[in-house]
């Protein structure tokens, strides 16, 4: 189903309807930061699947749920304050509830509302009730309301709303069974359209707001004077003009370190297991049955297992990233980070939360793309996901060091520093360009953000959230990564002369070299129109870690164990660059570095982009990356050669 994103309306839904499907759908909705997704995770456990709604980049969680004697599908829809949403995510929520074909609409809706901020959810409730949707209300955060001096009379609220209301605490599981029972009863209620929701009618809006105010006044009693809570006292520092940015940078530094330093040994361990016992355990039986060291065994060991190994090496990295995201979200800090970084990110038209994926990108682009999930507006997610590949990940560092050691051995550190500065500049410039061309409307929205209270993250919920996201990543990214690795292996196995057999050919005589040679002229204007360099760049499309080894492979020389000491490879590369650049090898080296910085980081990043923003936008991203990289490389070489 592809939902239309029109003004919410119940038009055309004048007939009564009853769900007859054996597995009806329940929608879980509510304003942001009321614990809706925590409630969804508590209901679904590890059974949930998250993914983009078809035809959109908007995240919708789905899971099965046992309510009474039947199993239903529950959907976690994007947070919304009303059916008159501003962002595409909010508009999707309204469209799925009101504009979808009758048999595809949810049979009942659970509206999550915060006891501390009852009014924010009741406006949405009122709009849905006007549309005749069967409703159940789940009141969250009663403990927070109590701490802030308020008490909710749930029974009275139920009477005022004329709907079943249950107090829930998704962090402890309290009230979930009762919610299931109420949802089961709601499924027996006939849904009928009473009148359309007219977003533009301000009188209607005022009438609803007045009704909400009356309900809140009646159902909420003040049991103590409003006093400063621990959250308030902490926020005073965490969001203050001086300590706030420092705390924010410290949090970002921790995330960056965790996703790079902590993940690295685990990735190495997985790599060793895959290339050692796993490869041996797979190829030995094949050899035993008589397949020897033929191409099939090589394909299995270097192509398939190599691809699986690359995919598995991302597991610790992604698990850490998703776990940290869950901690930041569940603890309530992410909302504060958005406020702290708001002004800095506003120049790019992005909210403060976008700082997180852009910082993480300097460690690895793959978890950084996934970290765009912290952004509530899908347009912000798309734009950030398109910018992340221009953040210089640690894998590119080995190429910088290698090339700098070959051409500028006494200035390696300075060259690397310049590349990182160039990366930051590239993100800023492209962000401004995208904002002024494709996303002119974003960035105008003012910051109006509800701040959830701080909470200690619950391990069970963190684990469920991490596993749900990790599983979704592996499912989507697995195919792309394995196919990319296998494709490179295949090109290197196909001989283009008559002197070698399939799978037993030097790289220079393979289809890989022939393809690189055909592409090489494209880089003549950049000074490195040579098939060895092009071949290395092609391998870098799969993973930047592969550039150094592939480059060495094209010269049939040893891969340097330390990029600072390139040895024989340096002489060979310098000779080729001197020839291809007409004697301006240093300018060509800078152009090559700039191309490495700006072109597509790796297959895993593409897979992550495809998952987060869809195939078409990921393809658009490749075009932007290649066009930017080529243009900059040519510009750097053409300008650089004037300086020698």
């Amino acid at each position, binding site marked *: 189903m592809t939902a239309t994103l029109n003004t919410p309306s119940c038009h055309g839904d004048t007939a009564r309807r009853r769900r007859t499907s054996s597995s009806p759908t329940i929608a879980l909705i509510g304003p942001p930061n009321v614990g809706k997704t925590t409630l969804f995770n508590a209901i679904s456990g590890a059974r949930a699947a998250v993914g983009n709604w078809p035809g959109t980049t908007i995240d919708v969680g789905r899971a099965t749920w046992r309510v009474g004697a039947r199993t239903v599908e529950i959907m976690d829809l994007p947070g919304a304050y009303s059916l008159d949403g501003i962002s595409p995510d909010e508009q999707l929520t309204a469209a799925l509830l009101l504009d979808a074909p009758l048999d595809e609409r949810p049979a009942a809706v659970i509206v999550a509302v915060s006891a501390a901020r009852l009014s*924010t959810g009741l406006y949405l409730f009122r709009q849905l009730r006007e549309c005749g949707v069967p409703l159940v209300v789940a009141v969250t955060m009663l403990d927070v309301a109590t701490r802030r*001096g308020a008490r909710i009379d749930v029974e009275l609220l139920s009477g005022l709303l004329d709907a079943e209301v249950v107090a829930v605490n998704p962090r402890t599981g309290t009230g979930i069974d009762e919610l299931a029972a109420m949802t089961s009863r709601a499924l027996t209620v006939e849904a009928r359209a009473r009148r359309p929701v007219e977003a533009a009618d301000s009188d209607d809006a005022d009438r609803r707001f007045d009704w909400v105010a009356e309900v809140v006044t009646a159902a909420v009693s003040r049991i103590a004077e409003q006093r400063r809570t621990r959250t308030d006292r902490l926020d005073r520092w965490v969001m203050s003009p001086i300590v706030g940015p420092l705390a924010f940078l410290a949090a970002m530094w921790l995330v960056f370190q965790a996703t790079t330093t902590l993940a690295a040994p685990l990735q190495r361990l997985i790599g060793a297991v895959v290339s050692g016992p796993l490869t041996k355990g797979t190829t030995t039986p094949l050899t035993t049955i008589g397949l020897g060291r033929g191409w099939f065994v090589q394909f299995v060991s270097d192509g398939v297992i190599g691809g699986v190994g690359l995919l598995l090496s991302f597991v610790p990295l992604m698990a850490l990233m998703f776990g940290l995201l869950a901690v930041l979200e569940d603890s309530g800090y992410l909302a504060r980070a958005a406020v702290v970084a708001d002004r800095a990110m506003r120049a790019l038209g992005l909210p403060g939360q976008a700082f997180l994926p852009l910082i993480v990108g300097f460690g690895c682009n793959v978890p950084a793309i996934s970290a765009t999930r912290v952004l509530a507006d899908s347009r912000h997610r798309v734009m950030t996901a398109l910018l992340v590949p221009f953040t210089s990940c640690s894998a590119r560092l080995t190429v910088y060091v290698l090339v700098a050691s070959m051409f500028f051995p006494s200035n390696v550190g300075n060259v690397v520093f310049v590349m990182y500065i160039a990366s930051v500049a590239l993100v800023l410039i492209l962000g401004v360009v995208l904002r002024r061309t494709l996303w002119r409307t974003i960035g105008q929205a003012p910051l109006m953000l509800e701040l959830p209270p701080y909470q200690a993250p619950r391990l069970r919920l963190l684990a469920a959230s991490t596993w749900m996201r990790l599983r979704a990543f592996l499912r989507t990214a697995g195919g792309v990564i394995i196919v990319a690795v296998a494709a490179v292996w295949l090109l290197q196995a196909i001989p283009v002369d008559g002197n070698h057999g399939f799978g037993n050919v030097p790289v220079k005589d393979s289809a890989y070299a022939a393809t690189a040679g055909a592409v090489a002229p494209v880089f003549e204007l950049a000074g490195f129109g040579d098939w060895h360099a092009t071949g290395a760049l092609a391998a870098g499309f799969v993973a930047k870690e592969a550039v150094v080894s592939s480059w060495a492979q094209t010269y049939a020389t040893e891969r340097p164990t330390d990029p600072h000491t390139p040895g024989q490879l340096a002489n060979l590369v310098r000779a080729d660059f001197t020839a291809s650049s007409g004697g301006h090898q240093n300018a060509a080296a800078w152009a090559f570095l700039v191309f490495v910085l700006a072109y597509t980081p790796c297959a895993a990043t593409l897979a992550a982009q495809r998952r987060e923003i869809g195939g078409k936008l990921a393809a658009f991203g490749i075009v932007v990356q290649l066009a930017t990289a080529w243009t900059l490389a040519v510009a750097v070489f053409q300008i650089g050669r004037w300086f020698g």
Partner: protein
Amino acid sequence: MSRSTQGGQSLAEISLGSWVILGAPDLAAAHTRRLAELGLRVGSRVHVLFNAVGGGKVVVVEHGRVALDHATCRRIPVTTQPPP
């Protein structure tokens, strides 16, 4: 957002700990509605809790906290009130 409220005080100028009554914001209709959805309607009584980075404010609405940026605060006229 370059304009602020015409005459009178805006939320941006209010000192910490003050209680204010909100006037009609000078914002796009959709953003005015979003403020109302957050509980910041014309006539609402709110408490200014503290300043945030960039000159924004965190205000107490009902029993929740809402952060607003400086530009938005400048466009919300207010009348100060004595504490309850």
